[in-house]
């Protein structure tokens, strides 16, 4: 009798207590800063979510070291969180209204800013009271993280687009990097065909089914897939049509090789099968893994779209910005970011040579480290050049539905390359995006 009752109560208690314990462990509050005096050294702990140990995490740790000189009691705890996981975590926390579990600072892809700020304003603190001078950043970059005129992101990773080409291959075809500077896409295709005829090497490569190239072309003309109000403008968009025309001509003429995965893409130019690439400046990190090609590369601006109003030779791809969460110790977090990523030449001068992290912070353009010639790129002062480019990148509206638009256009490109009429394929993409926005 007694035994039965004992066993029965145990049977009841054990699983329940396990379940309760599982719930309880997650609820422990993260330690945040104690006292935050208005002036003088601060103390406390900042938790940061970001990805890539050799790049963003490294930069954040260097920033922590620099900040610790004046504020020895501030600890920065960096938690490595790949972007896909970070987005999933943010969505889950926002959806379950558990914003107490957010870190103080997190890194966010520029293209994902509008979507997250518009859908989940509860996740963010704005930069209104941070003291950060946003005029010291390129307008094209701050636009990504600005919603209704309010800044939600401090630009870090520079996404300015560059054309990087193998000068030794160009030389075989009797050309130099100057032949590819300030040109239009039709010039580019003519010259690239010539290079291919003489050397057998295509100049560009990219992932099939990715629309990075198209998006760069669009932004170079200040155009996007959405208008000011955020409505899709995929059909009857002259810049987009021209960009797709240009892209399919690139592919069909054989000067642009399509591959299936990112690794294959990197492989094409590292192995020397393709003599150049167009991408965000961060691609230099991958280019420089090919040690045997040192001194054989040069960097210039992008070709511009023919016959499109507002077309320029400048664009961007990717890049990310620091966000302050709604759960942050705001005073400490904003002071930290303001004194490091928006105020420390030392930081950017440290991280540039070792990780290739190019600043978006414009005062760095005069820095001697930035104007140092790079042997790998034939003695070009690449980084100050990139900062020059970045000032001229036209701003465009990514919109909350950026990823929907991008994927619909990607699908349309696949169909167009398989023979569907471009206008029809884009009309279908427009419908797909309109459907997704309903």
């Amino acid at each position, binding site marked *: 009798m007694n035994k039965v009752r004992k066993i029965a109560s145990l049977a009841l208690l054990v*699983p329940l207590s396990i379940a309760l314990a599982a719930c309880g462990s997650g609820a422990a509050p993260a330690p945040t800063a104690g006292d935050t005096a208005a002036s003088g050294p601060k103390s406390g702990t900042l938790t940061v979510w970001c990805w890539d140990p050799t790049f963003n995490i490294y930069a954040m740790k260097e920033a922590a070291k620099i900040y610790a000189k004046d504020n020895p009691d501030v600890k920065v705890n960096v938690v490595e969180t790949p972007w896909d996981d970070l987005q999933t975590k943010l969505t889950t926390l926002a959806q379950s*209204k558990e914003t107490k579990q957010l870190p103080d600072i997190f890194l966010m892809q520029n293209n994902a800013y509008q979507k997250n700020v518009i*859908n989940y304003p509860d996740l963010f603190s704005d930069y209104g009271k941070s003291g950060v001078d946003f005029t010291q950043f390129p307008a094209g970059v701050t636009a990504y993280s600005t919603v209704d005129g309010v800044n939600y992101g401090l630009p870090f990773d520079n996404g300015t687009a560059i054309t990087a080409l193998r000068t030794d291959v160009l030389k075989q075809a009797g050309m130099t990097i100057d032949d590819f500077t300030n040109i239009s896409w039709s010039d580019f295709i003519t010259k690239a065909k010539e290079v291919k005829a003489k050397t057998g090497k295509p100049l560009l490569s990219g992932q*099939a*089914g990715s629309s990075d190239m198209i998006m760069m072309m669009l932004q170079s003309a200040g155009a996007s897939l959405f208008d000011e109000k955020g409505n899709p403008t995929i059909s009857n968009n002259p810049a987009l049509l021209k960009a797709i025309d240009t892209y399919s001509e690139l592919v069909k003429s054989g000067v642009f090789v399509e591959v299936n*995965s990112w690794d*294959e893409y990197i492989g094409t130019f590292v192995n020397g099968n393709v003599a150049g690439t167009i991408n965000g400046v961060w691609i230099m990190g991958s280019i420089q893994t090919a040690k045997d090609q040192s001194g054989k590369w040069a960097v210039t601006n992008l070709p511009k779209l023919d016959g499109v109003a507002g077309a320029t030779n400048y664009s961007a791809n990717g890049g990310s910005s620091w966000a302050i969460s709604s759960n942050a110790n705001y005073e400490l977090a904003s002071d930290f970011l303001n004194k490091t990523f928006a105020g420390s030449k030392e930081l950017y001068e440290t991280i540039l040579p070792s990780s290739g992290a190019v600043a978006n912070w414009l005062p760095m353009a005069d820095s001697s480290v930035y104007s140092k010639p790079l042997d790998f790129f034939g003695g070009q002062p690449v980084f100050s050049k990139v900062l020059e480019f970045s000032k001229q990148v036209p701003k465009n509206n990514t919109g909350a539905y950026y990823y929907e638009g991008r994927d619909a256009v990607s699908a349309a490109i696949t169909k167009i390359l398989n023979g569907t009429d471009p206008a029809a394929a884009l009309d279908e993409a427009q419908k797909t995006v309109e*459907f997704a926005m*309903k």
Partner: protein
Amino acid sequence: MSSPAVQATGRPTARARLKKGGAARPPNPRRFGIEQRRNVTGWVFLLPAALLIMWMNFYPMIQAFILSLKTGRGTRLNFAEPLWYNYQRLLADEIFKLTVQNTFIYLIVQVPIMLVLALVLANLLNDRNLRFKGLWRTAIFLPCAVSLVSYSLVFRTMFSTDGLVNDMLMGLHFIDSPINWLGQTGTARLVIILGLLWRWTGYNMVFYLAALQNLDYSTLEAARIDGAGSWRTFWYVTVPQLRPMILLTAIMSTNGTIQLFDESWNLTQGGPAYTSMSMSHYLFELSFQKNPNFGYGAALSYVILIMVAILAAIQMKVGDKRD
């Protein structure tokens, strides 16, 4: 309305049992007490598990159903007008239709091939005269120990334009130029099916092997003595006895394939142009990658549930001949 006996005592069961036990014996309150106590004990044992299942499985399912009736982005959710709006929307969603088509292609092509293959392999490996049986069994089961993500990545590398498969085919002069396996609809689907076969055949084989151990060996011997060849023995003696297990694996495989996610996500990323994307992959994309539309995602998950339920019911009807 009710019988006088019930009215008299209010306890029809006790009264009925009394009558059965014989009118001569006086009512025995203890006996009734034991039975009731046993019942209670049983329920107490059942209760924790039942509560846990209610709380961890059924409660979220009900919540998901309520969610599927709501629309709105992010956390700004409101009940849809009309309530079934999300379900109605699915019918107009071209990408959803495409993912249903893809998933059913995987299901119809892959599951039968896999089950037949597993059955044949299990029979071969059940041979009493086979040497190194453990080695073969392990070798065929091993793919199941590999994580879904890592095997998908290996397959992606193998089937890339400059990957192992193209190199081999070109080396053997079967093809002149590399095939863009993952870049074309037909071949991309083929690669996913090949991956699924490699990963799951051994898993199903183990179920058949286990069932074969319970099979009375004398039935096979008897068949052989009666002059049945190995094919006839297999088809008329082994397979009928394995029917419950075949039913189980068929339901599990159907269930798994309809919920397919990892391969679609890691191998092809759903491309080219959504033509290899599975339903679950689309569901994930709607909820976490695109503008978060959890109501619509939940509606999609309920449609998947209904599909699984219908298919399982059909298979039970067709496959279960126990009664």
